[in-house]
């Protein structure tokens, strides 16, 4: 059951034929080669497969590919611009929030969405907003610090 869909992927228009049985994860990772979209659990528990759909975080393993039709999709591959790390990526590096890196694309995308929301978050709210990601390495402390740093750096950028 093939279906033609069109969507924007990291700013570029894409026309692609997908099978209605495919998840967005299947299409992005295995057919288009966007390997920054990680496959962890496959059932919405771990957040490794997180992508942004119209600026909103979703677990792409439980999001059908046909639902991407007409939408703007962003993956970790589209976050750095002209070889420059984004504010969020830079903060993750500086805070040592990356160990094996498997959870990192998802966490960077979630933090990017928080930054772009323009809202302010208390520490407790930030923990809540990051809770859809499993990290088996870091113990989360540095991730939380990186997220806080990202939001502060983002705020400074807006004020400048």
């Amino acid at each position, binding site marked *: 059951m093939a279906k033609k869909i069109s969507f924007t992927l990291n700013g570029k228009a894409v026309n692609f034929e997908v099978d209605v049985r495919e998840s967005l994860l299947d299409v992005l990772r295995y057919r288009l080669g966007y390997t920054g979209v990680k496959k962890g659990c496959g059932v919405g528990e771990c957040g490794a497969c997180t992508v942004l759909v119209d600026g909103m*975080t*979703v677990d792409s393993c*439980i999001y*059908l590919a046909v639902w991407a039709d007409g939408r703007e999709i962003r993956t970790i591959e589209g976050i750095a611009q002209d070889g420059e790390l984004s504010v969020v990526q830079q903060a993750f590096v500086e805070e040592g929030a990356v160990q094996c890196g498997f959870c990192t694309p998802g966490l960077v995308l979630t933090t990017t969405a928080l930054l772009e929301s323009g809202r302010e978050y208390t520490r407790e709210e930030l923990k809540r907003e990051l809770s*859809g990601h499993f990290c088996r390495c870091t113990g989360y402390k540095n991730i939380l610090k990186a997220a806080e740093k990202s939001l502060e750096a983002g705020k400074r950028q807006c004020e400048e």
Partner: protein
Amino acid sequence: MYDIQGYIEAESVSDAVALLASNPRLKIIAGGTDVLIKLRHGQMEGAELLSIRKIKELERIEQLADGTIVIGALATFAQIFHEPIIHNNIPALAEAAVSMGGPQIRNVATIGGNICNGATSADSASTLFALDARLRLRSSAGERVVPVQEFYLGPGKVDLKPDEMLSEFLISPAGFRGFGGHYIKFAMRKAMDIATLGVSVMCKISGDVFREVKIGLGVAGPTPLRCVEAEEFAKGKAIYAETLAGIGRLAVKSTNARTSWRASREYREHLVEELTQRALHVAIVRAGGAEIG
């Protein structure tokens, strides 16, 4: 790949109910956070899916002139949590919304799917019970409106005919105006966990007596339920610790909890007694009462 045999997208409610009438095997999919998990785990095979995701009118949350709050079946938990109408009138439902899943799940999961799935652990259910919410069900033959208490028939079983769909929830002002409410989700982890017990209470007070108390529980029986005996007992009683203790004890009488790997029956009963009181402490203050020492 998912074991999907067919996939149709409905453009409107009338389109959806016509499609359901023509093929009773069609399975509705909204956010898919239950349906796709079942497909992944092989609990559903060769599904013929009817997507209702494009039906914009089902996403709305609004308050009618008579005060009734209407929540479309496709409203997501993220949307409910951020909606001022919900925050200002029924904060307990906002608390329930943000307690479920994690952020990515809340961005996609709908309140309609939460209730139609029929799980006793559905985080929105106990609050909808306490609010006396009603469900508008549509079919090609017309529509009917059913109280949420009557909608649940058994574990995983709801009163939805093969040709029907849920279009919205209706919450009358009589269900929330003048009430203070609070939802407590008790789980082993703070996020991404299914409730061991869900407790939602609403109370209306005048001076230092309870005028009305409503208690909705999840995972205290095969379906969500109301604690009728405790509610009757509370009416007209003075608001002090002994009354709350009595309400907590009587709340247990309405339950039919079972032992599962998450918790034993005894532990769940203990939680009912204790958390009903804790939820009431907050609800009393929200209803305009004084904090109980």
